[in-house]
């Protein structure tokens, strides 16, 4: 008798098991959709898969009647710009602030509790203040993402720096390294891959803040479109958009993972060991 914890699915079985939840969801959706459509062929709540595919193709290829833009690409470009800008700013700030507060006790004493307190503020609650400070244009959207993810990325980097063994710092000093040199040659190289890990974890929250900011005031963007068409229950646009966002988020995460493996092979090797 093999215990359950020792039983492993074979390759084919593993593939089937992986697909199973997806298939179940699609089947359940199709059943519900067909039932609703049989009752009311104009029902917008659960459109059929064909309707959604048509709708997605139209959004991705046909220029809009109102603006002449191809909506899906215009929205994707607008959203990705905001997201990447917010994430990039956060990465740069997190590595600078995180490594210095982690390494220099005076800075840590000054900033660390403040950052910890800052991280506790739910950014969405202070939106009106963000509006006043950064306007209601692109900047406030990017800043909302930064406010949302930077505090915990900074704290994560700071903790990683604090985990660097003292022996390394002592050794660097006996070799004559100044604080600046230790920061540049010891601390930053070791925490950079951690920054990529922290970013991957922050991406989910970054998307959330992006969509939230686009719900508040926008002319374009994936979140904007969803909130706009939600007004008239246009699920044949919303569901493909959600799938598209999921795909984008997955691709970003995957690219960051590949980038980490490519840039820091030593780090990835060390982790799996």
């Amino acid at each position, binding site marked *: 008798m093999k215990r359950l914890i020792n*039983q492993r*699915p074979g390759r084919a*079985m593993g593939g089937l*098991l992986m697909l*199973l939840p997806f298939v*179940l*969801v699609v*089947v*359940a*959706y199709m*059943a*519900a959709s067909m*039932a*609703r459509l049989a*009752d*009311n*062929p*104009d*029902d*917008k*709540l659960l459109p059929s898969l064909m309707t959604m595919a048509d*709708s997605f193709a*139209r959004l991705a290829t046909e220029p809009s*009647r*109102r603006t002449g833009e191809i909506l899906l690409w215009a929205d994707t470009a607008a959203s990705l710009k905001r997201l990447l800008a917010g994430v990039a700013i956060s990465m740069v700030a997190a590595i600078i602030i995180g490594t210095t507060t982690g390494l220099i006790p005076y800075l840590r004493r000054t900033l660390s509790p403040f950052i910890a307190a800052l991280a506790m503020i739910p950014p969405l609650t202070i*939106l*009106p203040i963000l*509006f*006043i400070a950064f*306007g*209601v*244009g692109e900047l406030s959207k990017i800043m909302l993402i930064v406010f949302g993810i930077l505090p915990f990325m900074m704290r994560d980097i700071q903790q990683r720096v604090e985990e660097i063994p003292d022996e390394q710092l002592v050794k660097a000093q006996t070799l004559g390294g100044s604080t600046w040199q230790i920061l540049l040659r010891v601390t930053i190289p070791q925490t950079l891959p951690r920054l990529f890990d922290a970013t991957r974890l922050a991406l989910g929250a970054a998307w959330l803040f992006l969509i939230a900011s686009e*719900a*508040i*005031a*926008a*002319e374009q963007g994936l979140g*904007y479109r969803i*909130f*706009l068409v*939600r*007004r*008239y*229950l*246009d699920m*044949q646009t919303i569901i493909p958009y959600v799938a598209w966002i999921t795909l984008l988020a997955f691709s970003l995460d995957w690219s960051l993972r590949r980038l980490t493996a490519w840039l820091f092979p030593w780090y990835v090797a060390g982790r799996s060991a």
Partner: protein
Amino acid sequence: MKRPNRTRSTARRVAGAGLLAAMLALPGLASAQEKDSFRIAWSIYVGWMPWSYGDSAGIVDKWADRYDIEIDVVQINDYIESINLYTAGEFDGVTITNMDALAIPAASGVDTTLPIIGDFSNGNDGVVLKDTDELTDIEGQRVNLVELSVSHYLLARALESVGMSERDVTVVNTSDADIVGTFSTPDVTAAVTWNPQLSELRAMPEANVVFDSSDIPGEIIDTLALNTEVLEANPELGKALTGAWYEIMARMSGDDETGVDARTRMAEAAGTDLAGYEAQLASTQMFYDAADAVEFVTSDQPEATMDNVRQFAYDRGLLGATATSPDFVGIEFTDGSVLGSEDNVKLRFTSEYMEMAAEDTL
């Protein structure tokens, strides 16, 4: 031997559970059968607060009892969510404007009847500009508003009135909850919104209301919508609601203690005070008297308005991707005439119930 077997049966069980879940998830597809319990959704707006009062003062229950049915009046925090829930079949009725009734349930194929015309906006919706009191200065500005809402419609009508079109401005979709906050920032100079937000904007020193719904009287109508199939199978629902509504109207319109008490309770439920609520009522053309509502709904006005509204809705794709012209959805008026497709009538004006109220036969 045992392993694949067990996995397969587990898989089958999981699949069964999934299907069962799907069946259960099929929300109450509004049935046309006779029933005796109904749910009406309402959201906070000056013209719909009477439902809050009618519910808490027991007037709705009293009328429901008279017709031997049950009516549950449910407040939904988000207006659009309340419409979506109604459209999905979760509710038998909803408080809604004429434009949203066409663009959301009717365009989604949910046959909807408007038995009670409560009021029309007579200044409750407005276009606000900073540092100018000329509507024409709106040209080239970024205008913050809830896109595809009655505000958007009001802007379209305002621009039309000075020979401009939406191409002359940039529309920025801004949620109604954030419109006051964004308008207080320097880079927002133009907005379109409704009360109570409109009165907040109006109070800002540099703001001017340059166009409001009193310039297009009778075009933004607040109504109670009921699912046509449900109403036809259960006319007592329409009777009970209409009876309750005009009893509430009679109470709230009075200057006596009852009237003041009713308005105060509506004000509190709306998150304002008596003075604030009465200011909003002043820019709302309430039909306190059923006969006035009957006169309005049987006039030529609804047809002219709905023709504007359906054109607006079609131009912005609100009638759905399959609509090839504004005629796609048919709208029926009290004289039986139909605007648009006779084969796809999904929105119906009626004076039947309000007439009964006016003749006191409920």
